[in-house]
């Protein structure tokens, strides 16, 4: 376990991070929201968590049961919101619903007013223009946005760091060629490519991720490249070469840790950028398939239904809070790596 011992430097950085109270609490808040949204199915769902019916225990949230089980007539998947089934179960047992008894696709047909319906005791944040619960869609939309952001950040950092490391470490012609390629590549109009793509295939999560990845990996390249260019002439790199250590090992073991400092500082900002990108694509209608829960789609609905301000306001507040949290975290990370700050003082 010696390997995992915290170095004094790392400890100082944690202290610096925690010293930025705003960023520290933002991180916890963001993590809490994210973890909660990972369990969205248990929070907002049109299938009950637990059903007790005629001495049997059923878990509809994880398994599917045909209607016949609960005294229905059809061997199809049970619709637990159906009045007949509810009555049948209530007579011989009970149902435990999640806090929000709507899934992201569930349409509330019992609305008293035409959709979009304003917030009420049943639909806490109202419904959208198709009668779906806004809070449920928000939770699922938040999850998809953050997951998209995280995967895009992870993969583009991976690609960016690799490319930057190779360019910076080997320098010379490799560097020159790569740099020119990046300059050309970064000038491609990404929005038009997305429009063209959406006319050929129905873009889903993975299509979007792949396409965005093609263009977003360049943000870290310059940073990492500069660090590697600087480090490759250090004496300890030369000493490692004199020991006979191979180039990949030198890059990973000796140079990368130094480059990681500036990279990590950047990551929260890339993450917030990625979330914004997905939102704007959804808003424009070139994003996730129609009907998917997403913040951008909610914003678009808000714009289309100005008479229903709860749509726009919800989407706006969610985005504003999420992005602010990420920026605060980013600031705290920057503090953590700032050599001029001394932990906790």
């Amino acid at each position, binding site marked *: 376990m*010696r390997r995992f*011992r915290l*170095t*004094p*430097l790392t400890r100082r950085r944690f202290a610096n991070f925690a010293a930025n109270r705003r960023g520290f609490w933002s991180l916890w808040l963001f993590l809490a929201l994210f973890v909660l949204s990972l369990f969205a199915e248990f929070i907002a769902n049109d299938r009950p968590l637990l059903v007790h019916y005629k001495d049997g225990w059923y878990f509809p949230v994880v398994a599917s049961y045909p209607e016949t089980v609960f005294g229905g007539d059809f061997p199809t998947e049970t619709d637990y919101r159906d009045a007949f089934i509810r009555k049948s179960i209530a007579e011989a047992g009970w149902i435990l619903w999640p806090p929000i008894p709507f899934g992201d696709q569930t349409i509330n047909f019992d609305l008293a007013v035409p959709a979009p319906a304003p917030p009420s005791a049943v639909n806490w944040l109202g419904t959208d223009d198709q009668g779906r619960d806004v809070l449920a869609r928000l939770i699922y939309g938040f999850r998809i946005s953050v997951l998209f952001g995280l995967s895009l950040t992870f993969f583009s950092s991976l690609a960016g760091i690799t490319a930057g490391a190779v360019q910076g470490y080997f320098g010379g012609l490799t560097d020159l060629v790569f740099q020119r390629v990046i300059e050309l590549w970064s000038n491609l109009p990404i929005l038009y490519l997305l429009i063209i793509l959406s006319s050929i295939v129905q873009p889903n999560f993975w299509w979007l991720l792949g396409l965005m990845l093609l263009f977003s990996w360049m943000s870290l390249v310059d940073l990492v490249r500069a660090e590697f260019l600087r480090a490759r002439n*250090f*004496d*300890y790199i*030369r*000493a*490692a*070469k*004199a*020991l*006979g*250590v*191979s180039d990949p090992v030198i890059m990973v*073991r*000796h140079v990368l*840790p*130094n480059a990681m400092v500036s990279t990590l500082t950047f990551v929260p900002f890339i993450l917030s950028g990625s979330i914004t990108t997905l939102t704007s694509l959804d808003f424009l209608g070139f994003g996730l398939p129609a009907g998917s829960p997403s913040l951008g789609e909610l914003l678009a609905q808000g714009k289309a239904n100005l008479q229903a301000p709860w749509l726009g306001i919800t989407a706006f507040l969610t985005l504003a809070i999420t992005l602010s949290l990420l920026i605060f975290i980013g600031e705290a990370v920057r503090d953590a790596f700032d050599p001029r700050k001394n932990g906790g003082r």
Partner: protein
Amino acid sequence: MPLLSVRNLSVSFGAVEAVRGISFDLERGETLALVGESGSGKSVTALSVLQLLPYPVARHGEGSSIRFEGRELVGAPDATLREVRGGRIAMVFQEPMTSLNPLHTIEKQIAETLFLHKKNITPKAARERVLELLHLVGLPEASRRLDAYPHQLSGGQRQRVMIAMALANEPDILIADEPTTALDVTIQAQILKLLKDLQARFGMALLLITHDLTIVRKTASRVCVMTQGQIVESGPVETIFEAPQHPYTRNLLNAEPAGRPEVPRIPPPVLLEANALKVWFPIRAGVLRRIVGHVKAVDGVDLKLRAGQTLGVVGESGSGKTTLGLALLRLAESTGRIVFDGVEIQAWGSGAMRPLRREMQIVFQDPFASLSPRLSISQIVEEGLKVHRIGATAEARRELIEAVLREVGLDPLAADRYPHEFSGGQRQRVAIARALVLKPRLIVLDEPTSALDMTVQRQIVELLRDLQSRYGLSYLFISHDLRVVRALASEVMVMKDGQVVEAGPAAAIFEAPRHPYTAALMAAAFDIEAVPAAEG
């Protein structure tokens, strides 16, 4: 009344006490040297005279007093300090590369001090005065250089410009903080001579801050020896050098690397040989990047290093000695023949070289730059073992690491600590341990002692000599410090501009140098005599 009188001066940074209650006087026209090793508080003392420390992070203790002509400087108002700074007391800093502003011409920078202190001087008069000052400090072709930028001048020339700036208002005191440490030996001698001449001419008092005892002996009339923020001994130079009282002073005076290498009667076999070794960097120009010329870093060098012996490579900065070391280890591209242990290795690829890396190792100059800051000492030393698959298990490797740390005089318990927790001398021991653990036959030592304090230098030299006799190591010892070379090398090679000007047995070269450049180097290094050699 003395010109400058420092009483009971103490300086602390937070909880760290850098200077603890020191007192000294400086009389008009005399040279006082403050001598000490790094961290002794000598530079902080110099900066407090001009109140240039980063207040309020730095604080002066109760009763600290610095009186200049009877006026108190500690805590004096800014207006008083501005008048004194640059006007009555001027300062020359160590590093000529960073103490001039790269964006202004040297005329503008010198004239600035004039305008600040003489309100009614005309631009024309200022220009004449600048020219006069540049002539005074012996800057060649001064009139043509008025519009030069700092990067167009060499290190020695920049230091002359710094001195001209300091002299602009004919100060009463000149504080010189390690004025020659960053310069080559021959230029160092010239600058010191210039300072002495100017002092005699203007009757200035000179407060010289240095770690170099040879400079003190040559230049100063009185000396204060500082260690750990205190003056442990002070007095006239002769007394201190002839009869040092304090143990620290004695230690410092004994710190000069002593001893001579043993020269065996029968020459041992040649381990490393190079013929017509060249490292040329192409200069490209034009749109097509055609090669228009070469920077000849190493230009046709022949050398022979015998087993168990030390070959000293001597030269000033830019002479190509470091590049030569890297080229011999095939860490820099070169042409020419390199023969290691009877095998020609010039054409070998990096894969073929890998097993050979175990036999040839290198120790670099700067122990702060040569250790990876994010690896612990044991990881640093272990790396070579892993590459060469020495020691089958982690435990076996651990034993080898602890043994080698003991060998270089470090506590094996320190193996899990990180480089920043060690002093410069200890780090250099780690660098030596990293090379030594592979049991190499050849170690290239690239200025291994020049970043270290005198007393530590001596310890490292003794360690190197001890290891050599125990394991029969061959050293290629690259250094500009002739004393260290004399203590270690049995053969010496003097380099200038990438070429060898003189080579042969150390004794012969040190006794009777044949080449005028070698002679100049020796005079500068051992007696700080300025020889009218061309300044670079």
